[in-house]
């Protein structure tokens, strides 16, 4: 036997842990600590009656907490103070001698915490938390109904099991309905409270300034930067262009506004084939959009959470955005009116030793050959790719070229660009990402910070800007960025869920709702009778049918519960037939009496066998066997 109060206590603490857990990382440490202390005190009070705090004191404290939170609220910090106050309120409620309304208030506060969490984070983990929370709350609310009748009620474990099963059933049945409601609930194209959403945050890893000689080692970062939905392409073409770095001061490469303007101008002529990508870019705190080299157009999907319109290369990305890009898949593209002097500029008297090296390498060769020689020198020379033991020096390029000969892509690309400029070839760096892992399930490339890369573009009059990637390890880089280890493969699998979570759930909006309605209307008005299913379609249909059947079975089980039994249906059939003959049974009349009332002898004779057989079984509490039922049916036909 179990006490309802004890079970409710466990469920309530479960709900509280879930709700506070989901917002914990956004809480102030002092509030989190306060919550933990108060909760522990509440537990101790419940177990050992350590101290009984008067209700007026608790209510007064709650009021004080709310007032303090009110003072902390500002347009910039809106949600966090409320969440901080809510967790303390939950802890205070836990301290009270919990009556049914107190428990209800705790669940309500937990629900508020979950609502608050949605305004801070859009993580898929919310769905898991919400599901668990709903299951716990459902069970708790059912038990609360028992608790209301008698707070000290004790029930058997079997009864408790049945109550929990009901909670699970309710949860399972509400799922398909929730999906349907999610799709059809009214949405607006112009929400006006978007300032409440504060999702996302800047990530480190991408920079539009390359500084050489500052750090000795680089930590690899596996954080996802973007996902690009597209067909799989040749790995060697996976250069995701972000920023052009055109100005070099001897230590740092930077992007000038002129270069940024040039980026927005697409290639003059389309020389190769184009490819389209839909990119889901994570908030990373910079303003560059990434697309396969060389992007021609960007179309940023209007972000429903955003107050500002995202302008490519102008607005800093602090929220997850989606955009479509069209790219020209070529290694070079022409560009008229290139400012040669700008792309040849180097600091005065910069690295004479390098200049001597370049002179010795290129001599008087034509531009194309100069490029070839310098590229080969770096890529096939004695230089090795490394993320450690990087040259820390005031003349990092020289240290790299002549001393350490080890460096990452920044050193290789910088060296090549500088050497090209010294050789009279306009050159610049391009920052972005290289490679990415193709997820065939979701049909997208997953690109992480580890794929960050820098390469070189050299300007040749007959080709235009030619992409050169001098980093030797570049070929081996990053098509398998996540490795082959099991846990990393698992991470990729989880990323598929994450991807669909954002694509299907988070980005569902008014536009898609309208599209869906239009598609359904189109399908109805012009049905397509051609049916040529592929494997995926058949799978989808099978899964859908399976789910539908499972739900129907569940509903049938639930609704069939109150149905008439077979024998009752037969009796009802008998009475209907007799009524059709003009003899209706009175409510409290026995069958025998009823039959006596029938004055048509032939009818009475035909009805007699049914009544006899029925009474033989029904009033003697016997089981209606298949044989009896068949017999009764036969008698009915005779009527």
């Amino acid at each position, binding site marked *: 036997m179990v006490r309802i109060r004890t079970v409710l206590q466990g469920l309530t603490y479960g709900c509280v842990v879930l709700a506070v857990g989901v917002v914990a990382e956004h809480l102030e440490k002092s509030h989190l600590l306060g919550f933990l202390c108060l909760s522990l005190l509440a537990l101790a009070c419940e177990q050992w009656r350590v101290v009984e705090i008067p209700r007026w004191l608790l209510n007064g404290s709650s009021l004080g907490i709310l007032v303090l939170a009110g003072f902390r609220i500002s347009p910039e910090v809106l949600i966090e103070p409320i969440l901080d106050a809510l967790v303390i309120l939950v802890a205070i409620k836990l301290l009270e001698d919990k009556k049914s309304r107190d428990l209800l208030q705790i669940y309500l506060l937990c629900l508020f915490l979950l609502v608050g969490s949605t305004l801070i984070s859009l993580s898929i983990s919310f769905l898991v938390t919400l599901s668990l929370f*709903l299951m716990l709350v459902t069970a708790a609310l059912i038990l609360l*109904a028992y608790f209301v009748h008698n707070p000290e009620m004790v029930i058997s474990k079997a009864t408790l099991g049945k109550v929990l099963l*009901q909670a699970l059933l309710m949860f399972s*049945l509400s799922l398909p309905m929730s999906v349907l409601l999610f799709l059809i609930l009214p949405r607006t194209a112009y929400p006006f409270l978007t300032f409440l959403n504060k999702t996302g945050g800047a990530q480190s890893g991408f920079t539009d300034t390359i500084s050489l000689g500052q750090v000795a080692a680089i930590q690899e970062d596996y954080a996802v930067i973007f996902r690009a939905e597209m067909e799989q392409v040749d790995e060697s073409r996976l250069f995701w262009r972000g920023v052009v770095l055109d100005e070099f001061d001897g230590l740092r490469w930077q992007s000038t506004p002129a270069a940024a303007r040039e980026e927005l101008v697409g290639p003059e002529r389309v020389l190769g084939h184009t490819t389209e990508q839909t990119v889901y870019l994570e908030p990373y705190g910079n303003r560059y959009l990434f697309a396969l080299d060389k992007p021609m157009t960007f179309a940023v999907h209007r972000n429903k*959470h955003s107050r500002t319109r995202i302008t490519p290369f102008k607005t800093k990305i602090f929220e997850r955005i989606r955009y479509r890009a069209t790219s020209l898949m070529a290694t070079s593209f022409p560009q008229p009116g290139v400012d040669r002097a700008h792309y040849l500029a180097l600091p005065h008297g910069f690295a004479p030793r390098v200049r001597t090296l370049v002179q010795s390498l290129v001599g008087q060769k034509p531009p194309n050959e100069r490029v070839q020689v310098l590229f080969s020198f770096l890529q096939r020379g004695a230089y090795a790719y490394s993320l450690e033991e990087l040259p820390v020096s005031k003349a990092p390029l020289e240290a790299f070229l002549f001393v350490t000969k080890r460096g990452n892509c920044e050193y290789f690309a910088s060296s090549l660009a500088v050497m090209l400029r010294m050789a009279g070839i306009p050159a610049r760096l391009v920052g972005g990402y290289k490679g990415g892992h193709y997820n065939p399930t979701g049909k997208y490339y997953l690109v992480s910070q580890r794929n960050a890369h820098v390469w070189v573009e050299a300007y040749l009059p007959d080709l235009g800007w030619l992409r050169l990637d001098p980093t030797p390890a570049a070929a081996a880089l990053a098509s398998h960025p996540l490795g082959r280890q099991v846990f990393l493969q698992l991470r990729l699998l989880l990323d598929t869920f994450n991807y669909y979570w954002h694509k299907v759930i988070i980005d569902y909006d008014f536009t898609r709702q309208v599209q869906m309605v239009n598609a359904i209307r189109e399908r109805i008005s012009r049905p397509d009778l051609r049916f040529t299913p592929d494997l995926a379609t058949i799978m989808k249909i099978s899964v859908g049918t399976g789910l539908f059947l499972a739900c129907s079975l569940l509903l049938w089980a639930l609704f069939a519960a109150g149905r008439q039994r077979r024998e009752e249906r037969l009796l009802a059939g008998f009475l209907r037939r007799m009524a059709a003959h003009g003899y209706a049974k009175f409510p409290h009349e026995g069958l025998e009496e009823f039959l006596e009332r029938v004055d048509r002898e032939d009818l009475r004779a035909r009805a007699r066998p049914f009544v006899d057989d029925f009474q033989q079984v029904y009033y003697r509490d016997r089981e209606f066997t298949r044989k009896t039922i068949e017999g009764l049916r036969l008698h009915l036909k005779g009527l």
Partner: protein
Amino acid sequence: MTIFIGFSAVNTANNLLYIMTSTLLSYMLVSGIFGRRNLRGLDVVLEFPEERFAGTPVPVGVRLINRRRFMPAFLTRVTIGAEGVLFPIVNPGTSSLLHFDMIFDRRGRHTLSGITLSSIFPFNFFTRYRRVPHNLDLIVFPGLRPCTLQSLLADRTRWRGEAPSDQPGTDSDLLSIRDYVFGDALKYISWKATAKTGQLKTKELATPEPPNILIDFNKLRESNVELALSSTAFLIVRAIHAGTPVGLIIDGESYQPSATQAHKTMVLTRLALHGQN
């Protein structure tokens, strides 16, 4: 709450809030369905004792039958009039019996037509009701008012011989004297016979022949009809309990004295329906 979250969802275009709103709405729907189903497929059978007296608590047995195949009946309250009883759980295909005391405030015919099933399941937000069509006719006997025969009977009633004591006694005529059997009460030992024979002898007494009582209701001293009915009912019940045959004459109808249960029911029913059509 749902409306508040829904409002926030629409105006923040936050799909997680939409998820919460849709889940809460579907929960409202599902809990409604479960609450409705919880009261379906249930039958109530009431079990009353054979004798029911006005003003005296009557133990009523309420049997709740769950005819459903799968779903137990949770937290079902069966209410009859102002009284009710709560069934925490009745498993599918089974029944459960609980008792509660019911007091009928007046004698006569009572028709119980209002049996109500109610439940707050699944959540204590709404109470759902279902009326069970149930027409049960009950006869409630007059309330029992303790009294004595003398106090009730009219002055002109003549007693032959001694006025009977209303209390049952054990003394009566001597039937025989037999040998003492271990366990016989000492007071029944015939000391005289014992002295004569030298062996312990026990007196055997005849069971007292109860006198027949015939109550003419219309000649009772009590002018208040209800009090008269209650007093008569008390006397009848006590007499029959003591095995004394009792008869009744009321409004020209005559019931010959008898001490059977069937007679008691018949006479009490007549009293219960006195003055009622």
